[in-house]
């Protein structure tokens, strides 16, 4: 079972899931190594079985083997909002069913007992923010929603609660940060959308199109040779224009399910974003201006 889904992915991908593995393993004694062949250790349901003398103990989560299965996310499609509602999840703590207002949002937090729920990886990043899975989300107050979640889920707020819930908090909070970071910029948002549809974008792929390669080299050269803020700003606005063009191309291609085209657009965006002068450099003239007197 474990190998079935893993067999389809490259080693590299397997390797890349170490952080997921970290998230989803059981509570181990400090400094122990993680033996993958050992049977799963279930997180104790009774708070008194685990003695945690301080807050700094590392915490791991259920199912040490699940990381190998995590590749399954590749083929997950975003569930529709209706499906989410009918999933029939109940609070692990008080067994309450999400209230009407809650069921509109993903069930990460139980309003009736103020309890953080375990991470449900079938809830995608768009659902976390109550968004439709679409590319154009610029005006949706992402930061505000992100902060609202953190105010419910952040580990700092559950210091005095059970270890189990503190683990949920750590995991949920981290996931909301990931979600926010991913959806915030068009490029990472696009890559994530493709991933939800099972299309992997290799960000490290080198440029094979000689024309594009020449263009990127030219841009880099221009940036290096730019001596004043005007030139840099000019390059910057050119880059933004190109980014915008390919961003639109991506949105169109994705809309019409042309995933190969969408992928190409994303790769273009990756190249241009890398060639774009670093903010440090573009800010240099600004710094001069800021100097008093």
């Amino acid at each position, binding site marked *: 079972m474990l190998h079935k889904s893993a067999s389809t992915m490259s080693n590299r991908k397997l390797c890349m899931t170490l952080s997921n*593995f970290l998230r989803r393993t059981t509570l181990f004694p400090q400094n122990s190594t993680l033996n*993958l062949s050992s049977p799963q250790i279930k997180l104790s349901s009774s708070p008194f079985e685990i003695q945690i003398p301080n807050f700094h103990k590392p915490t791991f989560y259920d199912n040490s083997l699940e990381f190998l299965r995590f590749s399954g996310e590749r083929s997950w499609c975003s569930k529709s909002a209706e499906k989410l509602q009918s999933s029939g999840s109940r609070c692990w703590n008080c067994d309450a069913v999400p209230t009407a207002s809650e069921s509109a949002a993903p069930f990460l937090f139980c309003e009736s007992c103020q309890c953080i729920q375990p991470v449900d990886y079938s809830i995608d990043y768009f659902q976390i923010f109550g968004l439709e899975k679409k590319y154009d989300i610029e005006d949706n107050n992402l930061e505000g929603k992100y902060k609202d979640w953190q105010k419910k889920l952040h580990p700092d707020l559950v210091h*005095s609660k059970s270890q189990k819930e503190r683990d949920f908090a750590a995991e949920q909070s*981290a996931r909301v940060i990931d979600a926010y970071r991913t959806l915030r910029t068009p490029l990472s948002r696009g890559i994530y959308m493709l991933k939800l549809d099972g299309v992997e974008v290799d960000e490290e792929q080198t440029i094979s199109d000689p024309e594009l390669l020449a263009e990127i080299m030219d841009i880099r050269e221009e940036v290096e040779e730019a001596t004043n803020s005007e030139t840099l700003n000019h390059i910057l606005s050119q880059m933004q224009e190109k980014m915008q063009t390919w961003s639109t191309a991506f949105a169109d291609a994705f809309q019409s399910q042309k995933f190969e085209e969408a992928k190409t657009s994303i790769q273009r965006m990756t190249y241009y974003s890398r060639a774009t002068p670093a903010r440090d450099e573009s800010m240099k003239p600004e710094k001069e201006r800021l100097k008093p007197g």
Partner: protein
Amino acid sequence: MAEPAYTVASDSETTGEEKSSAFPEIAIGVDIGTSQCSVAVWNGSQVELLKNTRNQKMMRSYVTFKEDIPSGGVSSQLLHEHDLLSGSTIFNMKRLIGRVDTDPVVHASKNLPFLVQTLDIGVRPFIAALVNNMWRSTTPEEVLAIFLVELRAMAEAQLKRPIRDVVLTVPVSFSRFQLTRIERACAMAGLHVLRLMPEPTAVALLYGQHQQQASPDNTDSGSEKIALIFNMGAGYCDVAVTATAGGVSQIKALAGCTIGGEDLLQNMMCHLLPGSQSLFKNHGVKEIKSMGLLRVATQDAIHRLSSQTNVQVDVDLGDGLKICKVIDREEFEEVNKSLFEKCESLIIQCLQDAKVEVEDVSDVIIVGGCSLIPKVKNVVTNIFKGKEPYKGMNPLEAAVCGAAVEGAVASGINDPFGNLDLLTIQATPHAIGIRANGNNFIPLIPRNSTMPARKDVVFTTTHDNQTEALIIVYEGEGKKAEENNMLGYFKISGIPRAAKGVPEINVCMDIDAANVLRVLAGVVMPGCRQPAIPVMEVRMPTVDDGHGWCTEALNRSYGGRLDLVTVEKKA
């Protein structure tokens, strides 16, 4: 991170469950400053600063060693100037803690009126107090612990309950190693560190509370406010950019460095008495006395220059050495020009890191002892085009008040008026990575990442049939590994024999919300689905004293035999 050897009161240790059943203990907030300390606690409706028996809210951070019983600035009678000048009083411990004797900050501390000796070999410096004409060696941790014991006793007497949990403020620039030293000092004093908060983030939390109180119904985050916090005390200068809405403060960026009032003072001492450093090199009783006298006179002059445009310095250092000089404010500013420029660039860097323009900043908050210096205020407000600094915070009490609020929030205290409906989302002040590609530093978690943070990167071997690899973890911004602070190292063994570049060594770093850093390393061979060896997980930092030596020793013993490189981008 407290070491077991020092863990005190372990039998009274409670799990979270037991705690919530009883009335929750409120953690106190402690601000250990380079020159002054304060303690504050949430009293149920607001933050209250605790006072010592002399009715002081601000207590000077020093410990005097006399006979067998050391005493600190909390309980002892007013510091007799004579004590400060006799070599028996140790202060500035916050500047010295967790530093080795090659550190420039330690070198700059050599003309303090007690003994700081360096051998420049990467070990802890020799610090000693003069007791009955004999040097009694001590450590910054010990001095801090003695001081914390007094603070604890004071707080317990006033709050009439045992104190165990504390939230301490720390400088942004502290390395993780330095943080462990602070934790150790607390453990020695029987205190449990609930949280170490970078100073400006404590101020950010307090600011978040102010915003919340000003418009409590405004929970929708459309009203986000960005504030820049500049905190300069006697030892450190810190900057933070925070975005606050609905009681949640997100730390956008942090920047900090080791400059403060102490440096202004040192520069002024050199200005008043050129060559004073070499003059006081031999640390005789007489020299210590002169050193102390000069220090007191210069400090006094700097304080007066905050309200006067010029001051008269008149001091007899003994041995026919007299200083009689008029100093004006311009002179003071000129002498410390480079320090003020550094403050300025720190703010600009922080704004850049936060991707925030000057115009976006709603409030500029200037706190810390140095905020009383007109030039410091000017430097900050000039960047913000003359914007008036935020009022409504006591610049000397802001950090400790923020720590007390965090103490209440972290202890799970509820306030019926929503005054504790707050959260600070922290960011990492330093990049963390490993040594690879020769002697380069490869950051995994960049500076100013939101916490909790997690990242993994694939590395590979540099030699054919390499069966072991050394993971050396560093913290800092330098491109070369040795320009950064080493946090620790461990070896992964049992890599299956293969040509170089074949085994994939995945290194994962994880920082949780409590700022605990863990490093995981696993090996995967092409064509295998299981890791080749058990994934190794190590909590950092692992190094203790003498970490300056480690790198050299490791290099000497292993050379490049256990090196790693980042995986080349495949065509």
